[in-house]
């Protein structure tokens, strides 16, 4: 099984057990770099897949919470190289497959071939790149696919239908369905017409669909879980970590357990 197929399998397994898959997002090395692996293990003990945010100086698709966590992690010296070193040291100890969420420039600076090699070795199965539209993605996609890693496409409620088909077909691991027209960390609640949108995305996808943005409470997870295979929880979890609270009870509660 390739790395991106492991992602799909982990999400499908949760769905088949009768609940939505939970994909928690943490900013790597936040709030304290020394606690990174411990936090990751905690989060991975509940989550089915963990999304690791790579800090970036210009997080233009993120709201205040993730901007702040990203900024602080950078100030404390977190870098992609450091994250890979940490993951290497914890090889085999993390209970969920990982995906990395990174803006393009840190990946470009790392070099795509080196990135794919280190990611595979570190147990990373895929990448989400929020400022990389499909049209600009040939080079990194080829480098990742050569190692069996997935480039996960985002789709949004603003995506026209023809484009939606293209993106769903191109995506590997899962399809990331952005629930709202906006940035991460919104607290305005989920839009009412989510059902049709998520059903449409799912109908175009051979791989599982995970919904993200604005998912904060158990009701949100349950609501998207009816129409998507998984729910991605980012800012709300980062806020828990910001308050130095244990993420496990928060994540378990999201699943209603």
């Amino acid at each position: 099984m390739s790395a991106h197929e492991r992602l799909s399998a982990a999400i499908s397994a949760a769905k088949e057990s009768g609940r939505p898959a939970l994909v928690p997002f943490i900013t790597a090395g936040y709030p304290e770099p020394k606690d990174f692996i411990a936090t990751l293990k905690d989060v991975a003990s509940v989550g089915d897949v963990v999304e690791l945010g790579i800090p970036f100086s210009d997080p233009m698709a993120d709201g205040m919470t993730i901007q702040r966590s990203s900024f602080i992690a950078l100030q404390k010296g977190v870098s992609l190289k450091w994250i890979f070193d940490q993951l290497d040291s914890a090889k085999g100890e993390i209970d969920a497959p990982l995906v990395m969420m990174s803006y393009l420039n840190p990946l470009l600076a790392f070099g795509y071939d080196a990135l794919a090699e280190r990611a595979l070795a570190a147990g990373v199965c895929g990448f989400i790149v929020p400022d990389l539209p499909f049209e600009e993605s040939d080079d990194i996609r080829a480098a990742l696919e050569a190692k069996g890693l997935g480039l996960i496409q985002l789709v949004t409620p603003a995506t026209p239908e023809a484009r939606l088909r293209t993106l769903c077909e191109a995506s590997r691991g899962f399809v990331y369905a952005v629930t709202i027209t906006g940035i991460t960390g919104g607290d305005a609640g989920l839009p009412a017409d989510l059902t049709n949108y998520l059903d449409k995305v799912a109908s175009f996808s051979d791989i599982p669909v995970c919904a993200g943005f604005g998912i904060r409470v158990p009701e949100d997870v349950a609501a998207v879980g009816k129409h998507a295979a998984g729910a991605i929880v980012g800012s709300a979890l980062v806020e828990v970590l910001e308050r130095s609270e244990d993420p496990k009870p928060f994540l378990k509660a999201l699943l209603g357990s």
Partner: protein
Amino acid sequence: MSTLFAADEAELLLDAAIKGNMPDDRGRFGPFGGRYVPETLVPAFDRLEAGVKEHLHDPAFQAEFQKELREWVGRPTALTFAPQLSKAWGAEVWIKREDLAHTGAHKINNAIGQALLAKRLGAKRVIAETGAGQHGVASAAACARVGLSCSVYMGAVDMERQAPNVDRIRRLGAEVVAVETGDKTLRAAIDEAMREWVTDPDGIYYLLGSAVGAHPYPYLVRELQSVIGQEARQQMLDQAGGLPDVAFACVGGGSNAIGLFHPLLGDDIELIGVEAGGTGDGLGQNAATLATGTPGVLQGSYTIILQDDDGQVQETHSISAGLDYSGVGPEHALLQATGRVKYISARDDEALEALEELCATEGILTALETAHAYAAARDYAKQNPGKRILIGNSGRGDKDMPTLTKLPARIRS
């Protein structure tokens, strides 16, 4: 950077640039440019690109645009011979006076053009970013003129050092949104404007102020600013009796420089862009992107940026808010890589000295941004006596009074 291409490839790329065949269909200026934006904005960029194709060179749009440039902006702006500066420098110095354009800088050319476009594209409201505040003022004025509401995103640091412009933007009926994130200057303002755009990609028109960002902005802004170089070229022929040997323009994002340089690319004129050298050569001490940066993706475009080895974008320093930017327009990256335009920098203190000299000799209070071009031109003149020099005077310096009054007054020599 000239090692980026083989010589024959550089020649082909430059030839395409001169003939106006850049950017290509994918928004590329050779390897630079492109469109790196969040998925939510892709349909909005597609619509914008289609709108630019449909309207920008449409005779009806051009007639409206040219009429506004003539009757509202006050174009053509003057070309001024600078006799005293010429004497002091041992050169023949000509100044293209964008400071005389309505609202006091070249920014208005782009702002009114895009505001007219926004209207045609059915935008409900306009957002804009600003560094020095000139683009904010220009956007506010242009939106008032065409009847669109406008919000201007401005870094908190810039709001302080360009306070008069904050007030002007508000008087012109626009809202000023203080940006407290990131470096609190131009780069953070662009990030924040993009975040706002993502919330309503259908209703918002983003009026980007420089020749930076994702395609089609670098192209659109260049086309709207090229009036500077077109006029200057004809005025040089008419008033000076010939083209200049060399032309200077300051470069932050690079909109006034591309506006001046683009129509001159095919002429036998040395072109020199001047970036902010800040207080020194160290990372973070300047905004000399092209001189010291490396290729990367920032705010939608693959271009030259100031970054560390991990690809983190670096903060910059310049006394001038308008040059204080970690990236540069992708067409400048190409023009540097092909060797057609040379990019150098002038330090804060050199710019200030040049500003004072221009005040004293020609009675022109230029913007701190523009002063960098004078500083570099003066150095050049001393090393190359007897040249005919054209300087793009991108804006006036009234907005810089808060910065200037904090400095000790100098004695005129």
